[in-house]
């Protein structure tokens, strides 16, 4: 599934990082949720692993005419036809040629998303995710979470993603 790629930091990916805060002040109802963190245009996004199927590289995409530009096309994943969208273009940022595809299954709808690189997986308590500010214009982000190194992960709203 995972083909060797310089962009995948495999040691990072497979070393499950437990947030030290969980051990100390984990509230009794603080359910742990796993997120796959990926990078797109220097931003960190987190996708709930519940939705993640696999990560693929070097796939041939067939472009489709008459669709919005962020729909990069369709790909053949072992006989299944899956649409691929570019997160950068979806968020209104310039596209980048070389990318990795994360295949998501969102309530039965399979979709691939182009990202720059995949960073790591983390487990965090659900109630530590803070809501995005009310005046936030980026519709695809449902929450924010501060990582240990001080950077901020934006939680990708996958369900909203498949609504064109």
């Amino acid at each position, binding site marked *: 599934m995972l083909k060797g790629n310089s962009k995948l930091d495999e040691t990072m990916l497979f070393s499950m990082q437990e947030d030290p805060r969980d051990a100390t002040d984990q509230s009794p109802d603080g359910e742990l949720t796993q997120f796959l963190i990926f990078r797109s245009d220097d931003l960190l996004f987190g996708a709930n692993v519940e939705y993640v199927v696999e990560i693929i590289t070097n796939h041939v995409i*067939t472009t489709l*005419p008459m669709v919005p530009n962020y729909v990069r096309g369709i790909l053949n994943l072992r006989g299944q*036809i899956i649409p691929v969208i570019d997160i950068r273009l979806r968020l209104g940022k310039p596209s980048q040629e070389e990318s990795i595809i994360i295949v998501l299954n969102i309530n039965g709808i399979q979709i691939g998303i182009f990202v720059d690189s995949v960073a790591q997986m983390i487990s965090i308590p659900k109630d530590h995710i803070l809501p995005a500010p009310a005046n936030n214009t980026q519709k695809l982000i449902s929450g924010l979470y501060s990582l240990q190194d001080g950077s901020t992960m934006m939680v990708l709203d996958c369900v909203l993603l498949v609504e064109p």
Partner: protein
Amino acid sequence: MDSILEMYLYETNTLLEQLESIALSAEQVNTFSQGNVDEIFRIMHTIKGSSAMMQFNALMTVAHRIEDLFFIIRESGMDVLSEQSRSELFELVLQATDYFRNEVEKLNNNEPLSEDIDSFLTKINSCIVKIKSEIEGVPAPSSLSECAASDAPTEEVAQTENLLVAGNEDFPYSLLVFFDEGSGMESLRAFMLVNSVRDFCSDSEFVFSPSDVETNPESSEAIIENGFLLQFRNADNRDASIQVVTSSGSIRTYQTADYSAPTLANTTTPVLAEETTEVKKENVKPTVSSKSTASDSTSGLSHSSKESFISVNLSKLDQLMAVVGEIVITESMVTASPDLNGLKLDNFTKSARQLRKLTDELQDVSMSLRMVPVSGTFQKMNRIVRDMGKKLNKRVKLTLTGEETEVDKTIVDGISDSIMHIVRNSMDHGIETSEADRIAAGKDPVGEIILSARHTGSEVIIEINDDGQGINYDKVLQKALTQRLASPDMEYSTKEIINFLLMPGFSTNNDVTEFSGRGVGMDVVKKSVEGVGGTLSITSEPGVGMTTTLKIPLTMAIMDGMKVSVGSSIFTIPIHNIRQSFKVNSDEIIHDGTQSEMIKCMDNFYPIVRIKDLYGLDCGYEEIQDGILIWVESGEISYCLFVDELIGEQQVVVKPLPTYVNSFNIKNHGITGCTILGDGNISIILDVANLYLSI
């Protein structure tokens, strides 16, 4: 349990279809033949038995009463019935079909069955009384109450017990069957055995004990203890039964015994008489009911050894089709693998060729599994024509041709409602209201609707033709004007007027009748025909009639396609849409004032559509002489597509596009689906009609 229910539904539906077609054909000749009566009797008996087993008591009771009714008719014959009670009888049988159908439909949808069968039972009972009184010449109201009051099983028990008590003169040849110890469900096994015996032996020819195996699971005990006793009137039937017994499973042993009849004098004359009639019927049966063999083999409950049909869930066939499609693609991926380039592999090539042949065969076989004749759908129209004819007081004859034409099962299901709608339209609007009008127009007073189906290569053409008054163009145009579909200052051709008929919300009838004018019109029919990849066209001549033609693809799953390239993209165009492909020079192109280009071929001018420009592709030929023109046609639309190159013809497995991309409405731009090519890449399948309309 679910599978038993499914079996029950399937079997009952098959029987009901038979019943309906018997009733309709019998009504034509105004009598039930002896074979018909036997057949209906058998159908009702099977429904009764299986309903009892599933504990659908209401269904069982109704079936039982109808069985009683036909028992009487079977004994006395149709000839004694008066004209009036005959038509009542036909009506009753059809009503019964509807009743069972409704109930079965409810079962299918997991709804509770209606327990209120009293009014229907009263109807059947009054019919029984009437027929009885006609037979005997005296009214017999007492027997009615008796019949209605006595419960089905007890009646039978009493009957058989009497026979047992009275001795075995009538059924001298007995067969005692013991099932395997601990095999379980002995009553059910016994019942299945009885059912198999019924296939060749009529009910009055044998008895069995315990007689309540159908309804009483407790009878298992008695069977374990004493065995299951079958007694026959003649030895031949018993011998045949022994064969059935030995071929069915879980039988430990069986014994035969002959009852030595004391003297012939002891046998009462009525019995003897009955016996001879029975024998006669037996002789008649094989010739009259040609349908019974087919029905026997499809009925799932009877465990007969001659069974050569099985019923398969359609979803399994879909799955098979999908897998076969994958195999076909994978096969070409393997044999055309780029890794093999430049290698000389004799044995490989040989095996690959063999594999190709086998996958082709596999594909053909799995396709043929899904093909069903259209006769099932056509037969249903008989009922519609009959019912509507009665209600509207029109005499109409329905002629069916090409019923045996086979179409993919999903397509048949998709268009059967459409055909029904068109037939209803013909009945309601097409055929003249009064026969005087028909005679005045020099036509046969009896109207005719012809339903025909035929193959043409990759398509099936279904035509619904009536010899009615045809389309009244003025009236349609008036209506279109009042409904603001047409504009008053335009001139419309007849073709354009016909197109109004296919627009949403169009209806010529001012009143809403039971049959049409409910707002669901030809537009819905057109949609559902196009939904299965077909086209619909109407032709009409005022005063002569109207013909509706449906062109339906044989199957949607696999089609012949022409691969073409434009820049780096590969598109597939259905072969049946392509008329011709040719190279042209730029000086042959005709430019009108605007951007559009045209080409003249075969004395007609056709517009040119450049795929590159239409889809805004980055690369592809600009100069018309570099690429190639493909002349395509779909229904009324005909034009030329400009592409870079023809790659070649290939059978492709059509895959739908993901719903996510479909939500961008690309279907309206001529992109209907995609297919996976030999190298694993995807090619987009074009719909030439929608492509042109999107410009």
